[in-house]
């Protein structure tokens, strides 16, 4: 994947990502939003491939496009019943939010444009998984374990929070 194809792939993926993200925000039906979110995530995985991060691309598909989206859909199903027509509306501070976002974009754009990156010509090694595994289990083993713990806590927390509450106020 060299040269022009890279460029084409990038622009296509970028367009997909931005377009689907915009749809996620703009659509009035929350289920549609989630569907477009999945599209966005898949395109993101593609983008990761262009960045030589194939393992990450796989994780992206598995976790985001698979797990997260499904979970969100389940969440919606638990909450929103009936008409899905206008479940995803804007609130009263849309204009202000747009202003802030514009400001953020201006600043980010300015900074991206003016920053001089000192790049390097070295290519990304082929064995991404091995490399990641190496540092993950050596240098970053503690964050790794912490992340594991976090997931456990999140799991327990989510169960506890979402558990059904009995009428007498005790949750058991």
């Amino acid at each position: 994947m060299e040269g022009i194809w890279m460029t084409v792939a990038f622009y296509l993926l970028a367009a997909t990502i931005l377009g689907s993200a915009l749809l996620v925000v703009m659509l009035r039906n929350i289920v549609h939003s989630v569907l477009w979110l999945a599209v966005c995530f898949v395109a993101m995985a593609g983008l990761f491939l262009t960045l030589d991060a194939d393992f990450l691309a796989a994780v992206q598909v598995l976790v985001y496009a698979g797990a997260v989206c499904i979970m969100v859909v389940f969440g919606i199903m638990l909450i929103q019943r009936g008409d899905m027509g206008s479940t995803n509306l804007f609130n009263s501070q849309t204009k202000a939010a747009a202003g802030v976002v514009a400001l953020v974009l201006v600043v980010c754009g300015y900074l991206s444009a003016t920053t001089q990156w000192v790049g390097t010509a070295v290519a990304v090694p082929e064995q991404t998984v091995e490399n990641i595994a190496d540092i993950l289990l050596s240098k970053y083993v503690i964050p790794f374990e912490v992340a594991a713990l976090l997931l456990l806590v999140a799991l327990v927390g989510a169960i506890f929070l979402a558990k059904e509450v009995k009428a007498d106020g005790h949750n058991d």
Partner: protein
Amino acid sequence: MVEFAMYHAWLVPLLPALAFLAIVFLTRPWPMLSALVAVAGIVGAFVVSAFAAYGVFTNPEFTEKPLVYAVRWFSMPGMQIDVGVQLDPVSAMMIFMVSMVASLIFIYAIGYMKGDPGFSVFFSYVSLFAASMLLLAISSNLLEMFVAWELVGLCSYLLIGFYSHKISAREAAKKAFITCRIADFGLLLGLLSLQIIFGTLNLVELSEKIAHFEQYTTFGVLTLIAVLVFIGPIGKSGQFPLHVWLPDAMEGPTPVSALIHAATMVVAGVYLVARTMFLFHEVPGAMELVAITGGFTALFAATIAVTQREIKRILAYSTVSQIGYMMLALGVGSMTASLFHMWTHAFFKALMFLGAGSVLHALHHKADVWEMGGLIKKMPITGWTFVIGGLAIAGIPPFAGFWSKDEILAVTLDSGHYVLFVMAAFTAFLTAFYMWRLIFLTFFGEENPENHPHESPPVMTLPLIGLAILSAVGGLVGTPWAPLWSEWIFYGHPHHAEPNYWVMIGSIVLAAAGIYLAYQLYCADKTKARAKALAERYNHIYTILYNKYYIDEIYLWFNHTIIDGAARLFYLFDIYVVDGIIVNGLGALTCLFGEGLRVSNTGRLQNYALVFFLGVLAVVVLLAFTGPSSASLTVGGVK
């Protein structure tokens, strides 16, 4: 024993103080035991003081140089206060007199207070009083004396308010305390000035330093101090214009009136001035003030006494008047005469109060003399001892009052205060008149059929007899022909004026005239029509006198209108200005700001997130453009 007593004179106040503690903490539930403890305490004090006095009077060196021993009470750089004992003839006489009279009155009180629910409490109070009074008498230091001075005031307060469930007693107690407090304010200022100028409050040291004080450099300061100090005695000794509390103080039980408000505490003022004579002696202006105050009060109170109806009130005004005499004598420079009168007055006035108490006891606290009469038949001991007292106070020789009063008149004349002499002489006449008016109305004339009097028990009459004997012969220590008294009690040099027979005869004539007039108006005339007619005729004067020149009303008005009004004003200022405008105003201002900012507190998460991102942006911009790395925005680079 004499030696021991002299060098352990601190036992004198200590014994009653111990009795006080014992009663309060131990024997309170058993009334009779408490009374015994109290009597034991005061009699012990009397024994010690008698020996000590004997020692002082047999050792002439103590008249020159008092016997002083003291311990440090507290000290700091620039100020040391000692407490101790100063024994000289004056203090020896005082503790002897106080403990003797107090002993008799304590015994009397056993009978008088019998059956009172506060019997033990009463004896604890009077013991505390005796301790304080004796401490006052033997103090070697003015601050120590001030402490005792206030403590006797406290006891006076407690005892006046002894029947505290009565509103009148409560108010009288309060009035006594506060009136004296006003006076003590002056005294305290005087003491402070002395401490600041002379650096000591020790009596002996002060007398030496004041004698060598350069009057020229600070002209008038001593006079001012003397006047300030004198304000204290004005209050405590019931001199005009602070005399108002003393008649009201008769709300207390009668033994208290006899002990505190006749014989001992109220003469503390006289004693204080005598004690600080070294100061007053240096400043003639202050001496004049003392003399004039005394002379005026003597006359002033005597005029009021003429019209009063309550037996104890008459005696109270009489006390005020007699203390005026003492002040007068001090003012004209004769400590000898003044303290002599204090000595005799203690006996006959205590006697008369106790007699009055006996009468009230018999009549179940009916106090109006107009409703009495003929009591002498039913109560012979009370009656005749009272008559002796009446003769003594009126100044009939050879009873005690004659000698002392005569001496005061003589020294006043000698010193050239003619106006004051005339006032004093007229007072002597009035005294005889009103006192015998009281006696005739109470003990002679027709009996009031509503009364069923009975003689008091021996425990009450024995002290009466004792005091009557003292009233009869107590003055013989100071007759002009055998002036034992003036050899001991004097300031500067002993001086005994030659007997002035004109004054002597004049005073006898005045006293006799007073008694005769009283006899004519109140005894010879059974219907007392002439007395009533007289009151009718001079109605205005009578009303003014009867209402005590309206001084109480003026004070009351001042207190309730001016003081309370001002207090109210201050309080309102505090609530509405200091607290209202300033404090709560600031608070309200803060709240107002809060109200303004409250709009921003929507409680909506997304609002906050919006603002949060603005903040993040600001920080980013700040860091990007002014941060440390803004000069070269170059990021990255491997190794």
